């Protein structure tokens, strides 16, 4: 589904990703872990199409299409979703209207008929229940005045509404208490299917107790230096990142 080959990315002349390879198939959940500054959020932003980065070389293909040729909104329309580490507040735009517009744009791109109002409302209610988000929150301006936990739940709610085939969760667990973490995980687990895939970017293994990954990758200094199964996450939790840093510091150029 997603294939990243030898991806090199820099920002303001400094290379952050230094030849990254990653293959994700339908039905899989991948966790990407790594110490601060290893390039995790850059990877998420580049996949989603943020323009502040320069792709020096490499490729990102999604369902056979070259993503580097597409703008951020086209990538979303192709079925990608990024749950932001720091969701943005948009005063004056209600989450409901925002989603209505997004769904309508996505459906139009895919040549689907517009969604009936009653179907939208039905879906809205269903997904609100799923992420335990209060209706009054979705009626309010996107993320405006929301607590950290509410913002993250709103991300998962939007993900549920947009039904992406590939969702990237960028440190969705940061700043979440245990209840919010459980709600977010329940949301993801319910949406998990044979047809879609998830990339969970996290610093800690805590979230992975709730969202069981099929694969765990360690990102360090712009490369994936280790890949494994869930056990790798537990090992990291026990040993800390120093172990990785020692083992792979020779990679530093």
């Amino acid at each position, binding site marked *: 589904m997603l294939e990243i080959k030898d991806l090199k990315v820099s920002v303001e002349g400094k290379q952050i990703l230094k030849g990254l390879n990653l293959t994700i198939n339908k039905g899989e959940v991948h966790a990407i872990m790594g110490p601060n500054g290893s390039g995790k959020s850059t990877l998420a932003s580049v996949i989603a199409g943020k323009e502040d980065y320069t792709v020096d070389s490499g490729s990102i293909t999604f369902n056979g299409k070259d993503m580097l040729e597409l703008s*951020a909104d086209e990538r979303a329309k192709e079925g990608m979703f990024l749950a932001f580490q720091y969701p*943005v*507040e*948009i005063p004056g735009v209600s989450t409901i209207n*925002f989603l209505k517009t997004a769904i309508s744009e996505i459906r139009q791109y895919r040549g689907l008929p517009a969604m009936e109002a009653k179907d939208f409302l039905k879906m809205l209610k269903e997904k609100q229940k799923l992420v335990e988000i209060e209706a009054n929150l979705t009626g309010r301006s996107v993320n405006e005045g929301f607590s950290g936990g509410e913002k993250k739940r709103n991300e998962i709610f939007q993900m549920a509404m*947009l039904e992406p085939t590939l969702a990237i969760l960028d440190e969705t667990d940061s700043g979440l208490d245990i209840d919010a973490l459980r709600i977010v995980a329940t949301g993801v687990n319910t949406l998990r299917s044979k047809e879609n895939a998830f990339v969970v970017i996290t610093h800690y293994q805590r979230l992975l107790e709730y969202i069981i990954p099929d694969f765990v990758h360690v990102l360090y200094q712009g490369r994936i230096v280790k890949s494994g199964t869930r056990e790798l996450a537990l090992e990291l939790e026990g040993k800390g990142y120093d172990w990785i840093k020692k083992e792979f510091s020779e990679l530093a150029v």
Partner: protein
Amino acid sequence: MELATAKTNISRGALGEAEIIRNKIILNKWINDIGIRLSNTGSVAKNTQQKAEENFSAVGLPTKKTEDFKYTNIRSYLQEDYVAKNGEILVGVQNFEPSLKLRVEDFQPLLNDDFISIVLINGKYVPEYSRLKNLPEGITIKSLFKALEEGNAVAIKHFNTGLEKTTNPLAMLNTALAGDGIFISIPENFSCPIPVHIANICTGDAKSFYNPRHLVYLHKNSELTLIESYHSINQAGKTFTNSATEFIIEDNASLENYILQEEDILSQRNDVRHFAVNTGSRMNSVTISLNGGMVRNDPTVFINGENAEVHLNGLFVVKENCHTDNHTMVEHRAPNCMSNELYKGVIADNATGVFNGKILVYRDAQKTNAYQSNKNILMGDKSTINTKPQLEIYADDVRCTHGTTTGKLNEEALFYMRSRGLNEKLAKNILLQAFAKEVSNTIKNEAFRTLIEQKIEENIQ
């Protein structure tokens, strides 16, 4: 009451004799252009206009050095060869100018049958085209000239009371040259159930110069929603309208005043307003400026009595090479009052926007709550905003804040929206609509608010 300051009066040094004479010559030329002025109605107006002629001659048209006009060089818009006129008469009606191509069909769609509709052509009231069938008994709506001529006690008593001591040269000029305008009076204890809508049509010859003068009086305990819209139809060239409106809001009365400015690039407009707000009264003024070659809005609010509440809001969208200036003054002259001011600007292309807002709190105006906020979005690399918020406080027990922000559209928000499938243009549009909504939401009349939101949507793209 003790005046806290006289500073604002001394913005320029006194002019020399030669310059004063020159000002008089220009003024006399314009007076001759007009012919009949308010002076013709009787001694009260005559004395007022004579005094204003002297006042104007002593200062002349503002220059770039005039602090209050620093960012709007009036002399580059209003030139001496402009011909002063006292409104104009329609085609089909007596004395029409052949060059005037205005037809009734042109402006009829602008009128809303649910409102009391008044048509002003170049500031002159045209009863034939106004729709007063909904007018409740007791409300007076007539030409100011007629009201003064007939000896209407309210008009005579209150004419020029607000602007008598103005330091604004253009307000003086309006008082000196005014020929006519509209007079509205709402009786005591009466709440006007339907909005009064004034449709202002700007039309006609190039280099025409109009000085309409309006007076709106709300007796004690009365309520009025006054909607004003400004349109250009078939203008032959650039015109300059220097209008002035005095509002007197007596004790416990309430005024909602909504203004839509959508004149074309040939229209240049200076809009002076003076609001006298008395004990326990309330006003909400919302100015939506969407177009016009040059627009200067210059409202002054005098809060004269306790427990009054003032809301002053504005949205200005400026494009191409246009220029919109909002120059506001809120004077807290009495204790225990609140004022809240919000002006938002969207400036695109090579356009220039100006916000210069001042709050003045007199020594006696304790327990004042005054807020002022100006937020601007610059759309283009060559778009300009000059913003200057000012607080001048002489009381010690007050709560006053002001703030201003200027920037481009939030890039993070744009990326966030795009990552959910909205293309860049749509995302920008939605952000701008949301930015504008904070102002349009302060319009209480639903029909007009809906219209404004449509207009904003058409204009912000």
